[in-house]
């Protein structure tokens, strides 16, 4: 059943336990994502998928277990350092800086140490090429964008960090069907750019289509792990854990 990543893992989460106050959310989550790999994380509401991403991002401190990035421990590292090591985060409610313009939103990730002006321009050109609508709205406040545009901005903003991996939390939530297919295009593009993705989703078909491997969580632990190809043919498992 276990399928190893082809190379040494980029992100390795090992037996992580996380609490919110007194409630025990993660009961020993173990998973890994290889370089440039798209990995899906499925499960019903409230099983700890988002908490897993937050824990990797350093937004929640695990009480037990370890997390490694490129073989180096990053457990408990502050989020801003992780961001600079190349971990991008796109939270489920997108969390655009609503009063900042589109351009300023992008600059929050661009104004890092050691990024030359040419490099900045290249990064901007790249995302404006993928998301022309953002170029159009570059001096508009983030809060005035539509839901789909905000989602693009959230992903584009994470791309400014030149991430090795993006933690993508429910990118299609609340989007129109047309936007949903655009999101899966974006995932493909990121995949071609060799950016790894850990994708949390409710949309099972999209996840199975986009990912190479899939973890299924239940009650704070990973219950099932399989190649996406395999799962597509195994309705029983999907039915058992996801009820669809």
């Amino acid at each position, binding site marked *: 059943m276990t399928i190893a990543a082809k190379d040494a893992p980029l992100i390795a989460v090992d037996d992580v336990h996380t609490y919110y106050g007194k409630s025990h959310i993660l009961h020993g989550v173990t998973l890994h994502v290889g370089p440039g790999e798209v990995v899906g994380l499925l499960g019903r509401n409230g099983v700890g998928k988002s908490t897993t991403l937050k824990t990797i*991002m350093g*937004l929640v401190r695990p009480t037990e277990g370890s997390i490694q990035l490129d073989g180096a421990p990053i457990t408990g590292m502050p989020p*801003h350092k992780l961001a*600079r090591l190349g971990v991008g985060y796109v939270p489920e409610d997108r*969390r655009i*800086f609503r009063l900042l313009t589109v351009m300023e939103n992008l*600059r*929050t*990730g661009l*104004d890092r140490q050691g990024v030359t002006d040419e490099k900045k321009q290249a990064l901007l050109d790249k995302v404006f090429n993928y998301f022309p609508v953002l170029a159009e709205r570059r001096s508009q406040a983030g809060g005035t964008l539509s839901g789909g545009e905000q989602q693009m901005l959230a992903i584009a903003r994470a791309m400014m960090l030149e991430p090795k991996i993006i933690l993508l939390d429910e990118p299609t939530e609340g989007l129109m069907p047309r936007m949903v297919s655009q999101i899966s295009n974006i995932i493909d593009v990121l995949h071609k750019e060799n950016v790894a993705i850990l994708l949390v989703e409710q949309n099972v078909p999209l996840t199975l289509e986009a990912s190479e491997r899939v973890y299924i969580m239940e009650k704070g632990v990973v219950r099932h792990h399989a190649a996406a190809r395999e799962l597509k043919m195994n309705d029983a498992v999907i039915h058992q854990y996801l009820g669809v």
Partner: protein
Amino acid sequence: MELTAILYSIPWDQILIQTINGIVTGMILALIASGLTLIFGIMDVVNFAHGELFMLGAYIGVIVLATTGNFWLALLIATLVVALLGAAIQIVTLRPLLGRDPLTTILATFGVSLILQNYALWQFGPVARKIQEPFTGHFTLFYLEYPWYRLVIAGLSAAIIGGFWLFLKHGKYGIWIRATTQDRVMAQAMGIPVPWVHTAAFAIGAGMAAASGVLFGPLVGVNHTMGLDWVLKAFIVVVVGGMGNLGGSIAAAIFISLLEAYAAIWVSPAQAVIVSFIVLILTLLFRPTGLFVPTPK
């Protein structure tokens, strides 16, 4: 009474003088309140020690002026020293409280204000010191010899506020500050070192308070209790202007200072303070989110 009689009975000369006075104190107050608003907006901290930072700025101005004789150097050094002090205060007392109930930060900054105020009393004694204004020219305004320096204060305060605004609007760190103010967690996730942004914002606010202390020093005596009056006024301004709203604070500072200046035509300055209290009460009654914020849709 006829209209002309009413018009004659209004003391236009006094009103003009008080308009200028009101704008001068309003700009100083705006400078203090902007720092307070910045700090509140970004870290939810009501900085009780803000008045003491203003007061320490004035004292450092006194010392540097006494040793170097250069007012502008005094302004610069006081600003920098108090900014550094502010950074140290933030690191020692507020950083450990991050994530705790915001009310604990009021307590902590209150403790800081007690310490600073009593330090100043102990170090400099109860007798007020004087800062000599950098130039003593006057121009004639009706029956008054009005000092140019007052206008310079208003201009300089406006320039500092303007510079601060440009920095927030376009500077790299300005964008960091605004992003952190809006969403601390997401700012961190974008690689912004939020704890240091907090420290820097506190230092900037402290420096602005110190600068206003030095600028205002020549108009009043410098003593250890001067901070309390100003911080109270700044609190009123911040509430009336809408908590955490920079533009609103500046507008409210000028508005309230003008009202107090006009009131002082008819009542004593001590009682003119009541006017700002009344504005505060009316604001709380009819528009508790602040006078100078757009109505939420």
